[in-house]
């Protein structure tokens, strides 16, 4: 890997990783806010309204961070990936521009109205503005996923003589078989993060013996939504995605699963092991025979292509990271289902609010859905390597031809410093908002 490519990739990876801490919460949280507000309209119980308003405050801080770290993403297509933008801008520009035009606009506009307009608008309109914020943030996710889906599995394009990709069929971008599974998987994963955050704040209030009534509501809601979404992330949406990967990107599937050699008579599923890229095998492996073939094809004996079946230059260039990202994501996802099922059982038996160990556990587990979400994206993006547009345009071709690695390193260091500051401010403000708690419910 030459320096230029390395720093361009590192800067994009760093800035997008930091950026995606925020939208993954806001997308799921907007749904929960709509739920709280809807409950309030139905029941007129004040605690639901105060929950909606409290979480919109958390949402607003995250949204601001998402906006200010999101604009650099749009810019970087041009600044660092100029050749890629030049060649494919006519296609991915469609969905990216729609994102800026429709969803970002819906979200930022109606967020202001939701926060400032409760008294002026009345409750029904207030619910509507909350719903439009939700619609905007999910439309945003959909359009970004549509952009990414085209890069993972290009459709509806035409290549001109000068090498440029131009749009041939607009609707094909949205009928892309990659899009819907990836979108649903992503949204459910985002709902996992926000459910865990809601539950975690609830557990904190109960343990802290402050805002206990709200705490119980948050915990209950977080656990119910957390259980449903954790299940849906794995099945069916995760399963659909895996089947897409094996169909359209078999080399990245082999890397994710750590299959170095194809084996006749069915592939084993690797639970633990470290990829050894020198000897081309997994060290310290624990695996269950034939299960992967069954999960993928519903046939215990189906052969699955291993890394030995592909040319070296078509393999992802960071197989160990891809393998770990995938295995940690799946491992965490499994733990989430287990924990939420247990919490739900305790809730059903009316013991949840008093089981301190479980409450502590829920409170401290909150970073892990973030990690799982980010690793899911690492799987998608590392798995797409060595291509920007899978099978068509190599990553090394896409960088800006005139920006030297020294300049990129300069801006990368700048982003690191600035984002460190942003991260600190974010934690202070969220901490302060949580400490203040929801506005007290009269009655």
């Amino acid at each position, binding site marked *: 890997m030459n320096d230029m490519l390395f720093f361009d990739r590192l800067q994009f990876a760093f800035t997008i990783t930091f950026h995606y801490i925020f939208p993954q919460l806001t997308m799921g949280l907007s749904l929960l806010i709509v739920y709280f507000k809807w409950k309030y309209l139905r029941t007129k119980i004040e605690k639901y309204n105060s929950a909606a308003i409290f979480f919109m405050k958390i949402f607003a*801080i995250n949204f*601001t961070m998402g*906006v*200010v*770290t999101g*604009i*650099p993403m*749009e*810019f970087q*297509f*041009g*600044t*660092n990936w*100029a050749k890629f*933008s*030049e*060649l*494919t*801008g*006519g296609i991915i*520009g*469609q969905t*990216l*521009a*729609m*994102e*800026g*035009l*429709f969803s*970002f*606009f819906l979200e*930022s*506009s109606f967020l*202001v*109205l939701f*926060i*400032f*307009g*409760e*008294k*002026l608008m009345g409750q029904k309109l207030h619910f509507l503005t909350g719903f439009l914020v939700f619609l905007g943030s999910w439309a945003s996710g959909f359009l970004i996923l549509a952009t990414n889906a085209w890069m993972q599995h290009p459709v509806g394009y035409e290549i*001109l003589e000068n090498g*440029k990709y*131009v*749009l*041939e069929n607009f609707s094909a971008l949205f009928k892309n078989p990659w899009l819907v599974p990836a979108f649903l998987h992503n949204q459910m994963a985002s709902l996992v993060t926000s459910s865990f955050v809601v539950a975690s704040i609830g557990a904190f209030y109960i343990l802290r013996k402050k805002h206990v009534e709200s705490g119980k509501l948050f915990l209950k809601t977080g656990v119910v939504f957390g259980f449903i979404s954790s299940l849906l992330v794995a099945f069916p949406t995760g399963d659909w995605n895996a089947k897409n990967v094996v169909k359209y990107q078999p080399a990245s599937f082999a890397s994710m699963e750590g299959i170095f050699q194809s084996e006749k008579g069915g592939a084993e599923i690797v639970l633990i092991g470290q990829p050894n890229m020198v000897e081309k095998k997994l060290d310290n492996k624990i695996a269950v025979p034939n299960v992967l073939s069954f999960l993928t094809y519903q046939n215990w004996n189906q052969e699955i292509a291993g890394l030995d079946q592909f040319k070296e230059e078509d393999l992802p260039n960071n197989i160990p990271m891809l393998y770990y990202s995938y295995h940690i994501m799946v491992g965490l996802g499994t733990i989430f289902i287990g924990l939420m099922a247990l919490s739900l059982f305790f809730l059903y038996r009316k013991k949840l609010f008093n089981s301190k160990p479980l409450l502590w556990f829920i409170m401290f587990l909150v970073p892990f859905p973030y990690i799982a979400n980010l690793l899911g994206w690492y799987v998608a993006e590392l798995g797409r390597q060595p291509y920007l547009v899978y099978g068509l345009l190599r990553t090394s071709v896409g960088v*800006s*031809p*005139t*920006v*030297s690695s020294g*300049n990129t390193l*300069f*801006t990368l260091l*700048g982003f690191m410093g*600035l984002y460190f500051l*942003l991260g600190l*401010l974010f934690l202070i*403000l969220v901490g*302060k908002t949580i400490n203040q708690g929801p506005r007290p419910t009269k009655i």
Partner: protein
Amino acid sequence: MEIYWYIIIAVVLGIFFVLDGYDFGVGIIHLFFAKKEKDKVVIAKSAGLFWDSNEVWLVAGGGMLFMAFPTLYASAFSGFYLPLIIVLWLIIFRAISLEFRNKFNYQMWKDMWDKAFGISSLLLALFFGIALGNVVRGVNLGSVTNGISAYEAHYFFLPLWDSSFSPLTEHPGVIDWFTIIIGFISVVTLAIHGANWIILKTNSSVNTKLKSVVFKLTIVLAILTVFSLAIWQVVNPNSLNNFLDKPYLIIFPIIYFTGIIGLFFVKKFKKDIYSMLFSTLVILGGITSSLASLFPVILPSTNKVNNSLTIYNTSTSQYGLSVALFWGIIGIILMIIYAIVQYRFMKGKIDEMDYGH
């Protein structure tokens, strides 16, 4: 089809500079004229309530530029790499200073973010002017030295400055004596615009003073404009050709000068909105005049080897442009409707509003 998209993007970016322009200007005025805590709060709020819905227009404009003219987007964004990333940092800094200022009630905390807001607004206004100056002056496309291109014909890279600070060398930098003057024009224009916004939207105690500030800055602006027009001819000798060929384009400079003349009467206006309208004319007239003098070029080449970038040699396919026209127009109409609703909803003086929270 290219020309429709050219107009659409020009309109969107024009609206962006008018809307976000006043909140940059508010930052500049805040830096120099807001002394009392009450004024600081309300002046910052007159930008803080609106900045993110104003910046929607930047994101939308950038996205549409990317879609419609990908080659231009690629060339300009990588060529102006350093200034653009610095602009990004400033935008981030400004946004967090507006959002986080009032979250803690410590004087130090507030002072720190006030300065951050003011300085980043000032630098952003300067950089936007410098950017316009660079577009007018042109760049060394292909980075040609002695008749040989170092890169593909439509790529270039500009350092922040060249030691001579001259726009007339073979490899000019981003900042030279011409672009910095355009930068000053931008700072002065946006300061006027921001002051007008503060006068319109707040009851701050400096409002009367700001009217005479607007008046004085308008004199400075008029002088700078005349001066820049003279050197404009030196830097880009072709800049009058379009106006001679198509005399009706003269409407754009007329808009600009109408705005300046109007601003001289700032103290006499019965309604504060009038001075706001005139500073809007200055911004729109300035941008459209510059674009009209270049058309159909968007980024001129300063060498004779490589052609300038135009709307025709940087656009995507006709199909892509036409299908995007459909959703683009719907989107922009929605944005305009929303902007009208929002500004009506938040009409009146900011310090008199009750948000119910």
